[in-house]
């Protein structure tokens, strides 16, 4: 954390002047929390394995950091006045309507679970895409240049291995929940997904290999015309692709979820700490000093882990179908599901690199 605490404004000068080795915070901070975080998350899985944690324990741990990072979105959406004043209705009306609907309707609750599950995958790919775009802009490139290619590349390295890998069918199983509200046609999705799995794997590989070749060729071509290749961006993409292919392609579902959720949460914590450090410090009545970064981290960890631990431990062993009859469980699900779906939705517009919100 010393590199974080010693962060100086000089290191946050406009990106265009910082070149191809430009980092968001510092080389060490970026490497740990952004560019190499997938690899560190892999180490995290090895650590819980070495500690002899059981599957239920790992599941609760996984839920704690997942829930912890989900709630942090409010530090930016509601805590940052510049963001809040742009979308007041989305930040007030929608949460109230959604939490009420989930608490009153089992069908809505289950729909939110299913939509949230798949939105999470898309959202996670978009986060890596967003970081890649930040690095590109910091290297001095136009915010639009290579943007579409980066978006598809990130979907390919994040979603591609999920479709092509071992746990693809398990990732479709949330559709079975819809059978509990009478929409049994959706229960055929995992069944047909299973039947098509080998074909889909071949299709993904057939798309990925030429696309990667084209991406590299296109980058090289742009580079000859002055496009600056960002080293942190390349590191981020390579580490994400490597870990994604490994854990989704060849490992069980639980391992894939743990590693992906962990590095996604690490990136999110680190990004919010960086972008909201002044906001949170001023909200706490602190001056904008060299310690505001550390203070922000403390606030985020306290808030996130407290919320994550409460939700995860309270809901451990319960699911939305069987637990919905209990008022307490239902309300807990209403809160956590609303926060999760709002997290995915809000993140889609409060971090726009193009609009220079980051």
């Amino acid at each position, binding site marked *: 954390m010393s590199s974080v605490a010693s962060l100086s404004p000089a290191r946050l000068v406009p990106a265009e002047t910082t070149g191809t080795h430009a980092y968001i915070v510092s080389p060490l901070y970026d490497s740990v929390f952004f560019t190499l975080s997938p690899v560190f998350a892999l180490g995290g899985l090895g650590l819980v394995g070495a500690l002899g944690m059981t599957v239920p324990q790992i599941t609760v741990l996984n839920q704690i950091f997942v829930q912890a990072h989900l709630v942090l979105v409010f530090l930016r959406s509601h805590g940052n006045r510049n963001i809040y004043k742009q979308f007041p209705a989305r930040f007030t009306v929608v949460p109230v309507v959604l939490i009420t609907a989930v608490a009153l309707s089992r069908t809505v609750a289950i729909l939110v679970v299913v939509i949230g599950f798949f939105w999470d995958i898309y959202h996670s790919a978009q986060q890596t895409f967003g970081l890649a775009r930040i690095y590109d802009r910091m290297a001095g490139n136009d915010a639009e240049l290579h943007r579409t290619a980066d978006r598809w590349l990130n979907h390919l390295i994040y979603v591609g291995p999920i479709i092509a890998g071992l746990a693809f069918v*398990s990732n479709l199983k949330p559709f079975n929940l819809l059978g509990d509200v009478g929409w049994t046609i959706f229960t055929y999705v995992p069944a047909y997904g299973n039947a098509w799995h080998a074909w889909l794997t071949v299709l993904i590989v057939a798309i990925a290999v030429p696309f990667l070749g084209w991406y590299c060729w296109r980058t090289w071509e742009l580079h000859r015309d002055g496009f600056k290749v960002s080293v942190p961006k390349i590191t981020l993409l390579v580490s994400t692709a490597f870990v994604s292919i490994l854990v989704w392609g060849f490992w069980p579902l639980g391992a894939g979820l743990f590693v992906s959720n962990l590095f996604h949460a690490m990136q999110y914590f680190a990004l919010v700490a960086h972008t909201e450090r002044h906001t949170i410090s001023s909200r706490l009545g602190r001056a904008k000093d060299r310690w505001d970064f550390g203070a922000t981290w403390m606030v985020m960890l306290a808030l996130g882990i407290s919320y994550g631990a409460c939700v995860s431990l309270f809901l451990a062993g319960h699911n939305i179908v069987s637990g919905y009859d209990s008022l307490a469980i239902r309300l807990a699900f209403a809160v956590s599901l609303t926060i999760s779906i709002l997290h995915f939705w809000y993140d889609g517009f409060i971090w726009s690199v193009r609009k220079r919100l980051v």
Partner: protein
Amino acid sequence: MNAKSLGAVGAVVVLSTIAVHFGPPDPRASWVPGPLSQLLLALEDSFDRYDGIGVPCSDRTPRPVTVGGHAAEVPSCWKVDSAAAGATITDPDLNAMALTVRVTAIAHAISAASVTASVAEKAHALVPSDEHVWVWSNGASEVLASVVVPRIVSLAPKVRTHLESIDAAVRSLR
């Protein structure tokens, strides 16, 4: 959600509808090029070695089970909840898509080999039912064999690694 996202969702819905309507092509079909066919079958075999959540299920060593009071053997990684009557399962060969249901009571009337062939032939034709029922008759006796597999594996072109129950019955037609 913008127009592009809606378009992408629409494309997924249309493609999924087509995929469901036509079902997966059999990798062994004549129009599938040889190398692609081999690749697809290798992938299927590789997925078969795991259960639904990616846990290895590659232990094919025979495990003795009792099916309807009869001794049978299935691969160790299979989950069998059998309520069969009068049937034994022998020589399960998933790679060849053959599940031999040998009904000992009429072993002399209907050969096990013909039963095996019928199972393999009908496994794909009966989708998307979760319960596969086969009937064999030689005019004098009739065999009904019912194999229930979870829906999640029942749509695959070949019988996969999980059986929920196996049931068989024999009756005289005279």
